[in-house]
């Protein structure tokens, strides 16, 4: 039993997550600068997002639409009249000395994210989803010199706050994966954790099993991959368990995950009780989502991961494991759906997509690329050729490999190379006879009971036919010729 498992026998871990999803709008939430990632520092700025004196925020309604769609997809109650508030603190990356956020009236209340943990259905309730503006980014040069890049300042964010419903590091990572899939299905966030378009903070506490009250929690930051989320929380569980075992108290603090050292470390030497002095943003009128906007948002929702999962497992009869892999990224699911739409049997298509296609791309999102070597229709053609027995499974894989590297269609490769499986009984009969005749000793031993020799004969026939023989037919013919048919 690992140390972690030992701790978890004694303590129950309680985790709540705050996920910031950067909304993929064209412009910033309160001004006209581009919200795109990756430009040279401070080139995507304007007087408003730089907080220059006299500037005023004007709400970008595309950000509101995104938040409403996310809320509807997560089953939240949409607050049709809500307001923005100012959250105050001093930091160089915060141009106005306050962040425009939502406080007492978030745009979405409640809701839940559903997903599976090792095949088991899980549901994590949400407290709220609110809209806010992002801050800039401090860049620390050597010798105590720092610079600030305000390109990100004012980029719209949705903050998704969960209830403390999560009970393991693994579940936390799966929850983040599910949220990421959801925002990507909705097309409202690219979900790129490395670039920071999906960021997550975890509140972690332990309590003795059987105890109702929550323990003191710490907040973990700086986790920019699913693996980081998992590792950071596991490390924090161990750290807290050891402190509690020694009878020490947990200090409520913010801790940064240091992936290179594999530890969490306190962010500040002494705990600062922040007073954000929230008050309603006087420069913005109340935000109103009318019934028509709500109806339009509802109508615009695509098929979501969980619905797709249900369709795959129930209607298409896929295993939960396969369905899980396919729905994890909307590009995979779309590729799979297109393959099936082009005539492939769903179960076969799933095997090919999972075992062959996904094995050949570094990033599953590439399945959405138009220049992918094998388009869904081409894969469907190959799947059908194997299904009909025109290609053997092994040949099918070879053809797939060539399709991928040569960017040719299965039919073209087969026609050009004469690769079609030989199922013609006359030709096979001939080949089998030749093999049996050429190996009289083995034939005699087989007839004497050495049935393991069947493999030898099948292999020989395959060699004779350059692998094109249908193995099932070969088996039947050989058994008959060797007196077992």
């Amino acid at each position, binding site marked *: 039993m690992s140390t972690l498992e030992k701790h978890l026998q004694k303590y129950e871990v309680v985790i709540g997550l705050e996920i910031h999803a950067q909304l993929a709008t064209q412009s910033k939430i309160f001004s006209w600068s581009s919200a795109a990632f990756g430009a040279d520092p401070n080139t995507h700025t304007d007087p408003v997002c730089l*907080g220059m004196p*006299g500037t005023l925020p004007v709400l970008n309604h595309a950000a509101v639409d995104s938040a409403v769609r996310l809320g509807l997809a997560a089953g939240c109650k949409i607050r049709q009249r809500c307001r923005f508030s100012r959250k*105050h603190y001093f930091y160089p990356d915060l141009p106005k000395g306050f962040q425009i956020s939502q406080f007492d009236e978030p745009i979405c209340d409640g809701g839940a994210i559903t997903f599976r943990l090792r095949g088991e259905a899980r549901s994590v309730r949400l407290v709220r989803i609110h809209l806010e503006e992002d801050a800039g980014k401090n860049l620390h040069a050597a010798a105590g010199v720092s610079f600030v890049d305000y390109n990100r300042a004012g980029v719209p964010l949705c903050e998704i706050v969960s209830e403390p419903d999560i009970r393991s590091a693994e579940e936390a990572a799966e929850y983040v994966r599910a949220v990421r899939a959801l925002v990507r299905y909705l097309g409202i966030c690219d979900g790129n954790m490395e670039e920071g378009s999906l960021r997550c903070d975890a509140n972690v506490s332990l309590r003795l099993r059987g105890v109702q009250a929550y323990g003191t929690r710490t907040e973990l930051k700086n986790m920019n991959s699913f693996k980081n989320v998992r590792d950071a929380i596991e490390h924090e569980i161990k750290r807290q368990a050891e402190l509690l075992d020694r009878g020490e108290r947990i200090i409520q603090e913010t801790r940064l995950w240091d992936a290179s050292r594999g530890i969490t470390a306190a962010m500040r030497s002494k705990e600062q009780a922040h007073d954000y002095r929230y008050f309603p943003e006087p420069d913005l009128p109340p935000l109103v989502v009318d019934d028509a906007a709500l109806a339009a948002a509802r109508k615009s929702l695509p098929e979501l991961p969980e619905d797709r999962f249900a369709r795959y497992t129930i209607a298409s009869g896929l295993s939960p494991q396969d369905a899980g892999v396919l729905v994890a990224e909307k590009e995979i699911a779309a590729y799979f759906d297109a393959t099936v739409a082009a005539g492939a049997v769903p179960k076969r298509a799933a095997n090919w997509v999972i075992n062959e296609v996904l094995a050949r791309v570094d990033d599953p999102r590439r399945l959405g690329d138009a220049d992918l070597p094998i388009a869904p229709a081409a894969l469907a053609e190959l799947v059908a050729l194997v299904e009909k027995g025109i290609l053997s499974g092994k040949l099918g894989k070879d053809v797939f490999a060539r399709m991928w590297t040569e960017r040719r269609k299965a039919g073209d490769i087969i026609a050009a190379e004469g690769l079609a499986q030989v199922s013609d009984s006359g030709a096979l009969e001939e080949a089998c006879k030749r093999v049996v005749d050429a190996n009289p000793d083995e034939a005699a031993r087989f007839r004497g009971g050495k049935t393991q020799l069947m493999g030898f004969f099948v292999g020989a026939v395959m060699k004779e036919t350059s692998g094109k023989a249908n193995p099932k037919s070969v088996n039947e013919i050989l058994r008959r010729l060797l007196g077992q048919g």
Partner: protein
Amino acid sequence: MAAIADGVRAGKLRARDVAAAYLDRIERFNHALGAYLLVDGEGALRQAAAVDSAVAAGRDPGPLAGVPLGVKDIFVTHGLETTCASKILRGFVPPFESTVTDRLGKAGAVTLGKVNMDEFAMGSSNENSARGLVRNPWSLQHIPGGSSGGSAAAVAASLCAGALGTDTGGSIRQPAAMCGVAGMKPTYGRVSRYGVVAFASSLDHPGPFGRTVEDVAALLEVMAGVDPLDATSIPAPVGAYRKAVQSGRGGGLKGLRLGVPEEYFQPGMDAEIEAAVRAALDDLGRAGAELLPVSLPHTKYAIATYYLICTAEASSNLARYDGVRYGLRAADAKSLEELYARTRGEGFGWEPKRRIMLGTYVLRAGYYEAYYGKALRVRRKIADDFTVAFTKCDAIVTPTSPVPAFRFGERMGDPLQMYLADIMTVAPNLAGIPALSQSCGFTKAGLPIGLQIIGPALGEEICFRVGGAYEARTDWHTRLPPEPATQTSSERAS
């Protein structure tokens, strides 16, 4: 102002000559008054020349062709230093233009320069400027009023034909009254706040100054209107303000009911002011208006409510001055905290510091409901008082200030006493409704007295009609202050 615009538009007057004449007056008298912080002679002459060439080319130069303006240093002007009379913004040259100054420029107005003010518009006496005080042209020993004291003094002393100010609790009307000119705080949202440095966002109202109410109306017609850059601006058509002035001047006030709120005529008010305002009410009655008493019972809470809201919002709005992006930065700070503390410590004057501290206190966790939340509820009641009153009357008439301009330093030691100078003006800001101040007499000592006309939301036209009718019957607005002694050449050299 109309004479200038009409003359320039007709080609009888050159905008360049007008600008040059005003620049010359500024050169001669600003030294004594301190109204201008920055004179942009070159820019003004360039703008004027553009107006002249438009006229010469037969293009419409705009309704304010060649009208020279003084712009309160709270309006952001592209390429022209904007400091809000604060050390903390020293050297800030904005890369953008306020909506109001942009609209005025497009209408042919010429910006002569930036005028002085109380730092960040905080004050009622113009003694809080980091850039030196402004003197009242009627008496150099007296304050011009604040915070738009520079604007009012510049118009009174003819250092510009019109001026821009902002009014958060009376900062246009009170100095207008003390300097004997006209000024208006329009309905909240009627004029865009984009490019107006924020003091208290929900109370800040940009507005015009002029010698006459018609000048004020002409400026407001250009300034007003919805602005896509200000989400709080009102998408309602702009009224015919000059026409309203003319209708008041010509047709009188027959059929108009004017409310006189008892709460604004309490004992303790300066006797000369009360007499002048009572006389003005009689004039308005003679002009055909029906005068009737109205009650605004929550007026007594207005000052407290105002200071809770304005300090809370100010503490927030002034948080951006941190030395990181623009303006003053404390030298050689060893840490981030030190950078903030020293920059703000060195950059802000006493009044902004006092209000930041108060506002921070008001908003702190656990106190919000007791202070800010409660103030918002009382604010609603104050606004409701006006709504009820306006079911009985069309406009409300009061004094603008309970006292005439006081001497420098007289109230500096007592901020609470100073805050009371706003007592007649803050309620319309809390309610977001328009209010006009115009001259209605002088004290024996020769200091101007102001009359305030308060209208319902978007009721600017009613205020202008009353103001026009009053001006038609009186000549206070035609009186000019004595010219201050001109600067000697040796003084100029120093």
